[in-house]
């Protein structure tokens, strides 16, 4: 018979791990389905696993490396008894409670489910992008910057992530072209100033990438200027993509209410979704703030909401009448 849990947390970024710390401390023995290794942000620890220095998480005067911060959060949750499965949730049935989650070969029943699956990086969807991924086209600046020493490269995007990657890559590259579809950045002021002061960063405004070119490895990017209508090619040794995110909500289609953009809908000022016993936290339900600290904060809210909901419904003590029996 399937294992039954008070709380199952799907996702292991700042939201999921904070929810794990809080529910573990409330003796709810949470199980965290943390995901599988990958070279995108869709991995245990989430988006911060691909970043270097995190300078705005309160409590770290000199900043902290993203993977280290996530390692600490995981260890902190484990210290209070949170359990982890390094698999992806493959299927859910939120027709409960109890709700059902298929993770790897296991089926798990959960009274309360906290959805913290976050968001993943968008790709450009170019004809040759997949073919050259890993051969000059990259989604991970910290992994691949090393291979572009002394070369010219490009970063596409205009937010904080794009600028952070561009600045990081100036340590290796001779020049970093920052390609952005508008003529102004949406990144924070401090990141904009740093990029503008850096001699190695060159801005390519009002421009989109239309394809990546090269036989066995990236040699150039094809560009289109949205204002002048002009097409051009820019020879580069590497292209790093940081154009934004989409929420990881495919798994919950048909079960949870979501916006047209795929973000989960929560009741204002809480983590409650439209399904009883299902709570959402972090970037999966937030397209406004999307910070590690806001994700952590909403993970805490989800843990408290789940704990109070479990107490109020006594779900944890209830006979699981809905479970099919095998006699």
């Amino acid at each position, binding site marked *: 018979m399937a294992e039954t849990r008070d709380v199952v947390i799907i996702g292991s970024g700042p939201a999921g791990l904070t929810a794990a710390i809080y529910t573990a401390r409330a003796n709810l023995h949470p199980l965290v389905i943390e995901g*599988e*290794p990958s*070279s995108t942000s869709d991995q245990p620890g989430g988006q911060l*696993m691909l970043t270097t220095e995190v300078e705005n998480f309160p409590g770290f005067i000199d900043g902290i490396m993203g993977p280290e911060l996530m390692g600490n959060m995981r260890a902190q949750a484990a210290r209070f008894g949170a359990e982890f499965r390094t698999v992806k949730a493959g299927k859910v049935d939120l027709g409960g409670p109890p709700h059902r989650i298929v993770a790897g070969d296991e089926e798990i029943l959960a009274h309360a489910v906290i959805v913290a699956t976050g968001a993943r990086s968008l790709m450009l969807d170019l004809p040759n992008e997949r073919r050259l991924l890993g051969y000059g086209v990259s989604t991970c600046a910290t*992994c*691949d910057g090393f*291979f572009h020493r002394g070369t010219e490269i490009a970063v596409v995007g205009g937010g904080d992530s794009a600028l952070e990657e561009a600045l990081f890559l100036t340590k290796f590259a001779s020049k970093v072209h920052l390609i952005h579809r508008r003529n102004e950045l949406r990144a924070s002021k401090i990141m904009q100033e740093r990029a503008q002061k850096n001699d190695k960063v060159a801005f390519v405004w009002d421009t989109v990438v239309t394809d990546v070119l090269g036989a066995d490895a990236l040699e150039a990017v094809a560009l289109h200027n949205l204002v002048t209508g002009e097409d051009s090619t820019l020879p580069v040794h*590497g292209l790093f993509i940081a154009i934004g995110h989409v929420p990881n909500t495919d798994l919950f289609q048909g079960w949870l209410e979501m916006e047209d953009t795929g973000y989960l809908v929560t009741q204002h000022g809480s983590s409650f979704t439209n399904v009883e016993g299902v709570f959402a936290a972090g970037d999966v339900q937030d397209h406004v703030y999307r910070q590690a600290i806001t994700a952590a904060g909403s993970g805490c809210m989800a843990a408290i909401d789940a704990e109070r909901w479990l107490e109020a419904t006594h779900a944890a003590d209830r006979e699981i009448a809905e479970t099919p029996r095998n006699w």
Partner: protein
Amino acid sequence: MAENITTLTDTNFNEEVKGSDAPILVDFWAEWCGPCKAIAPVLEEIASEQAGKIRIGKLNVDDAPATAQQFQVMSIPTLILFKDGEIQKRVVGARGKGQLLEEIAAFL
């Protein structure tokens, strides 16, 4: 590191990989690469569970840049499977254990 994982360098690469009787899966990695660290335990498990069928080699790109360049590694982790000294399979980017086993299933 597990006993059945071989550390590869620019010096011993030919002997260990080209001269290997069993297929060998070479992991190009580095200390500063998060996804590389995430798959390290996966590779250790595969090394012990598939002992005798496949060998695992680890090549640190900081320590062995010439070999990394020879195989045009531009992204890590990159995993290259060699059999009789020939490249059989190339996997770029981290994978979960199940996915990785599927990628190399033909050689187990």
